[in-house]
């Protein structure tokens, strides 16, 4: 009995000390990891700046000044953020989450510079340094802005047109057996043809390049959105429809208040797929037909062998497309708020 209690005591003590150890260890971990996140961006920016200054000695100063300024701004902003974070909890949380990834991006830029201007491993003019790309971006900002604006107009009008038509066809085919009989075979034959394959026909048929580009983007969006709308409508749980009928619902209520809301998650998958194909089609359409927009800009810059501008346009495209994606995600979160906690994408 005695020995047992002694043993128990001893094990308690052991437990206590090990707990202490654990807490000390974990606090050590958190403080060191916090320190690491805080210094990550300034350190990365400093390294990138040092590499840049060392590497670009041989380059003309005009090309490199703006990149130095850019890195200096990153360094400055990160230091300001570090100074502010003790007083601003939401900034602190954001930094804990974002610092590693931003620092990695800065280091990636740095290694790009080492490979291009540093060791000259890649042939010029096809692979300019980040400094060169930034310079092209600044020099040509007016035309780039104009191209982005044109692309945006074209994309939005094509996407909107495609979505409206797709929702109408999708709901009809999904709901009415008659529409399904006649519509489905057409959809199965026409739909899978990539929209870009219609380019030759579109150029012959349409009065202007812009017109055909809008049509092509709309066509690209139409197929996935129609398909997913049909599947969503047709897969509406029969019991929802039964319940609605016994509540006195007519055809209109069943379609607009039961089938369409029930199909919304599926429709959104179609909207995202359609957005992807619309980006692709937009760039192709602009490359071959329209005389404005980012796709046109890329092929135009390539024609002059100004690869700095090509990359600048790619950077803009990345920002442009991911912004639009983000907007669609926000819309989705709004519309599908009832699924909160249920969906995982």
């Amino acid at each position, binding site marked *: 009995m005695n020995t047992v209690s002694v043993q128990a005591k001893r094990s308690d003590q052991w437990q206590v000390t090990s707990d202490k150890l654990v807490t000390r260890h974990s606090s050590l971990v958190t403080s060191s990891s916090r320190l690491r996140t805080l210094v990550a961006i300034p350190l990365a920016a400093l390294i990138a700046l040092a590499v840049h200054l060392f590497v670009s000695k041989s380059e003309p100063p005009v090309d490199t000044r703006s990149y130095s300024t850019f890195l200096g701004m990153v360094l400055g902003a990160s230091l300001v953020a570090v100074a502010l974070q003790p007083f601003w909890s939401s900034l602190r949380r954001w930094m804990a989450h974002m610092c590693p990834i931003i620092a990695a991006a800065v280091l990636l830029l740095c290694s790009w510079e080492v490979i291009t201007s540093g060791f000259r491993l890649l042939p010029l003019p096809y692979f300019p340094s980040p400094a060169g790309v930034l310079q092209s971006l600044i020099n040509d900002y007016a035309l780039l802005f104009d191209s982005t604006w044109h692309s945006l107009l074209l994309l939005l009008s094509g996407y909107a047109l495609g979505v409206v038509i797709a929702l109408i066809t999708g709901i009809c085919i999904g709901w009415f057996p008659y529409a399904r009989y006649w519509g489905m075979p057409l959809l199965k034959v026409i739909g899978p043809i990539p929209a870009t394959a219609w380019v030759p026909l579109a150029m012959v048929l349409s009065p202007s390049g812009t017109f055909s580009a809008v049509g092509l983007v709309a066509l690209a969006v139409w197929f996935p959105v129609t398909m997913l709308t049909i599947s969503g409508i047709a897969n509406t*749980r029969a*019991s*929802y429809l*039964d*319940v*609605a*009928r*016994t*509540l*006195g*619902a*007519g055809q209109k*209520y069943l379609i607009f*208040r*039961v089938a369409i*809301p*029930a199909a*919304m998650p599926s429709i959104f998958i179609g909207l995202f797929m359609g957005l992807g194909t619309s980006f692709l089609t937009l760039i192709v359409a602009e490359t071959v037909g329209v005389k404005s927009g980012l796709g046109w800009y890329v092929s135009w810059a390539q024609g002059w062998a100004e690869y700095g501008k090509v990359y600048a346009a790619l950077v803009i495209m990345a920002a442009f497309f991911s912004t639009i994606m983000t907007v669609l995600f926000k819309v989705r979160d709004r519309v599908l*708020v*009832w*699924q*909160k*906690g*249920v969906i995982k994408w």
Partner: protein
Amino acid sequence: MVAASATLTEGSSLRVLEVSKHFPKPNDPAARTHALDSVSLSIAAGELVSLVGPSGCGKSTLLRLIAGLDSPDSGDLWVGTEPITSPSAERGLVFQDPNLFPWLTVRRNIEAGLVARGLLHEKRAEVDEFMRLVGLETFAKAYPHHLSGGMAQRVALARALINHPKVLLLDEPLGALDAFTRMRMQDEVLRLWEARGTTMLLVTHDIDEAIYMSDRIMLMTQRPGRIERTLEIDLDRPRQRNSPEFLRLRSDILELLHFAGQATSETHGRALV
């Protein structure tokens, strides 16, 4: 046979005459399952009747026919003096799964029947009354996936009742709830029934539930589905779940079900109504 305690009677009588229904077998479309064989029953306005029987005996089929969601191969169904041809707001249906519309909040789910009939504007005040009636005022803006099973089923009941149905069809509405929630919900359904005088037809395979709640119990047999026996339950309300009469009825029904199980092949008797 109308419940004496009913303060008002919104309910209507229900008659089912010689109704038969077949279904094609899923794996062999040429062969047909005989789901209901010449079923007849009659329920007075404001009466609460239970249908009890083994699973697959056609209880749910009968309920769907009365709701108007399916049509019989032969026979007629009437609510009051009107024949049943299609679904209607005057015949509410509550399933075992509450089937709340997940994209609508609790309040909007309850409003659904009014919206469907274009009456929301004039009857908005009634929505509040129903939210109170089922005790869900604080959950008005919650979405169904935040509700417990019992709460969701209360919303489903309120959603069906807001149309003031003449007949409320309950297809094992409490089957998925735990024992305690179920007993509480039984009292709640009885309270609503007594307050409104709605005619109710309750499908269940819980014998205690049937005895506790109903004026009459109809026992059904399997394939083809028939009503084998009808029992009057003339215990005073509120009923005691552990009274000797209750327990005697319970053992009687168990015996009957067991007996019915053996005798179906021989008797082939007409349904007792």
